């Protein structure tokens, strides 16, 4: 058994997957994103592998700049952690994904998660359309206008005054804003830092979530992000455990909800790299009952079914106070959940086993 792996050869994702492959005696044929970008024909090296796994390009700045350049950005250079070029990076990534898809046809390999699905999961508007069409419970959402004034105009027509604004093509909570407004107050909570110089304004990702209340800062942030495309979702009150709000990341593999992480945060964003804590599933079941967990798993499975050709996907599920689940998003690379086990398997082990079973069944 040999799996082709398109990945960034530095970093935990790569190491963890290779460790899992080794444990299951699966050979890995590696192709780095950098090689692939430098030489598109290198995709041919994956010919003859049984399966190909496309791993996240990760946080590599040069890679992101390359994607931005490929996506048509006129200023692809980015400072470390800078929030920039969301749409261009996405366009570039999609172009490479298309190339991978073509390579799969030409060289006869199959992707565990097809490139087209990955592109769709990375597009929050497309994912929202699919969820809505499938009748999956979701916060009310619409694609945001691309200017601040138009956004405020649109929001003033809505009853709700609390919104999440998420970049259509972002990930890891980069650029995600929790926004609430009222004629007397405006507040934007986001892992975003502003840097103003005489002639420029830059946004940076920060692990420390900031509350912005200065209207000029809020407008500056939104004016920088909106043109890249954002989705506007109603900000629903999450249920709490031990007084702290939580949501779930559910890894769905082969139509089954497997690894489930309860993420708790005092902030509106529960991403674990932003300092959220993993909570105990036992206390959730104790408080809300086994059926509530089943409902969350059910919602996650239905969300994953919106990407039917994909073997796995990490679904974020919000739980309301009455225990009812709402699907927030599907993450193409949502399987990095170290130290979480399902039936004794890590996420990568479970994905590998399912890949093999799928191959065997075919």
């Amino acid at each position: 058994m040999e799996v082709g792996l398109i990945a960034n050869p530095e970093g935990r994702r790569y190491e963890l997957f290779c460790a899992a492959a080794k444990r299951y005696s699966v050979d890995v044929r590696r192709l780095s994103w950098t090689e692939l970008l430098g030489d598109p024909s290198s995709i041919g090296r994956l010919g003859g592998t049984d399966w190909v796994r496309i791993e996240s390009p990760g946080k590599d700045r040069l890679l992101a700049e390359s994607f931005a350049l490929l996506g048509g950005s006129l200023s692809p250079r980015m400072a470390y952690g800078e929030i920039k070029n969301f749409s261009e990076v996405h366009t570039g990534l999609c172009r490479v994904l298309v190339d991978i898809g073509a390579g799969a046809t030409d060289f006869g390999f199959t992707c565990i998660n097809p490139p087209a699905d990955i592109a769709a999961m990375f597009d929050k508007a497309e994912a929202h359309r699919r969820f809505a069409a499938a009748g999956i419970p979701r916060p009310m959402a619409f694609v945001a206008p691309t200017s601040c004034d138009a956004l405020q105009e649109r929001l003033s027509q809505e009853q709700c005054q609390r919104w999440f604004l998420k970049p259509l093509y972002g990930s890891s909570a980069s650029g995600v804003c929790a926004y609430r407004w009222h004629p007397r107050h405006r507040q934007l909570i986001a892992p975003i830092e502003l840097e103003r110089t005489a002639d420029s304004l830059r946004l940076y990702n920060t692990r420390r979530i900031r509350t912005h209340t200065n209207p000029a800062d809020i407008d500056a942030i939104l004016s920088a992000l909106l043109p890249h495309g954002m989705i506007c979702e109603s900000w629903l009150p999450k249920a709490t455990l031990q007084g702290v709000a939580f949501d779930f990341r559910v890894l769905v593999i082969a139509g089954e909800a497997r690894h489930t992480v309860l993420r708790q945060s005092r902030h509106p964003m529960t991403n674990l790299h932003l300092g959220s804590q993993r909570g105990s599933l036992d206390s959730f079941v104790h408080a809300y009952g086994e059926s509530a967990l089943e409902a969350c798993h059910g919602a996650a499975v239905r969300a994953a079914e919106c990407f039917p050709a994909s073997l796995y996907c990490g679904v974020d599920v919000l739980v309301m106070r009455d225990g009812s689940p709402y699907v927030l998003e599907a993450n193409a690379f949502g399987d990095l959940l170290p130290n979480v086990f399902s039936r004794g398997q890590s996420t990568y082990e479970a994905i590998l086993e399912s890949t093999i079973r799928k191959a065997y069944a075919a």
Partner: protein
Amino acid sequence: MGLIDFFRNLIAPSASVRPEEDAEVPPPPEAAPSGEDSVPTKETSVDDRRELELADGMSNRFWNISRSGSALSITSGPVGSAGSTEKESHRYEEKARARFDELVAEKLRQGYVDIDISTLSEMCGKAPVVDAVSPVHFSRQGYDNYKHAKTFLGFPVVDFDPRNLSPQDQIIWRIRGDWDRSAFREDLQIFLASDLALDVPGLVIGCWSTEMYDDDSSFVVSGLCEKADRLAKLKGLYLGDIVSEEAEISWIKQSDITPLFGAFPKLEYLRVRGGDGLRLAEVTSSIRALAIEAGGLSAELVQAVASADLPRLEHLELWLGTTDYGGTSTVEDLTPVLEGCFPNLSYLGLRNCDYADDLARAVAESAILNEIKVLDLSLGTLTDEGGRALLAALPGSHLERLDLHYNYMSHGVRQEFSALSIQVDVSEEQETEDEWRFVAVGE
């Protein structure tokens, strides 16, 4: 290796394959240094588990115990930290079970309470907890405006559910709505009309509207006062257990709370969150503990408190705040308090204050240090100046505990405090940047 071999391995694990779940599983690896997996979780089978917390105003610590068979694991430490873990192995499971119960009982005796009490079903099977706390322990240690109150008056707080009106002992109900759909008004009415109201020693009022910036608390105050005869045993009220996600503390619109004192003559504990619109006329009350949390308190309100006739008051906690959020008080407004207008005062908390140095100097020059046991000037902008004034005044005072956590004092001055023989908290020192100092709770 081929597919078939691979499958054989899956079915009959070889050395290269991870053991199955039910086998002896080694402990999970230590937490990775950073990133997604800061808290490792492993689905090992836990037979028994209890999570307790002590938040008595002196300290804020957690204590978790779990039992897997005959092995006990106890993790404890300050809330917010990862804590440290101790393990105990016993030869027999029975012994471990008895030890588990013994340790839990000991902690409950020390005043720890179960933390996972946000819903009623979480309460099931949990032993009742301690008696009402003494007023001196009424304060909230931190400024955690991200979490709802877990306990009030020493009892766990549970959200009221109008579909379940069966009486529950040893808990305090919280009535609150959500911001997207609030049934607060209906829930409050149902609660007050039900038999539940007749026996409750305390009540917690949470988010009362979907429009917290528009709707002030006057309808809550009048609603409670009108039904005061139904709340005949009410000793404690928390008006505004509202976390930042529901409404920032400075957005909460309060109202005139004077009627509460008249309507509830038995009221002993009152905690209010939010200073905007908060008013108080002349009052006489036998209240024992009064706490007002705010981003800013008006001079009028502070004066009204300082001139109130509260002969039994033991605990007074005011979050004075900053001018940015409506704080207009000065040291002069507090003069009557520092001169001892409350003869029974034991705890004085003048917290979250942006003139903390002036305040510390005035406190140091007054006689109040000989009257009270606990002085709390935490969450403010205290620097070395105020710190030194206090240090000079402390010898010979009757103070037992001094809380100065969240401060801008230098290492040297903090050291001097730590060397004192009384209990002192000078933690959470803030970096002074560009001469801009902040109180802990604004916005």
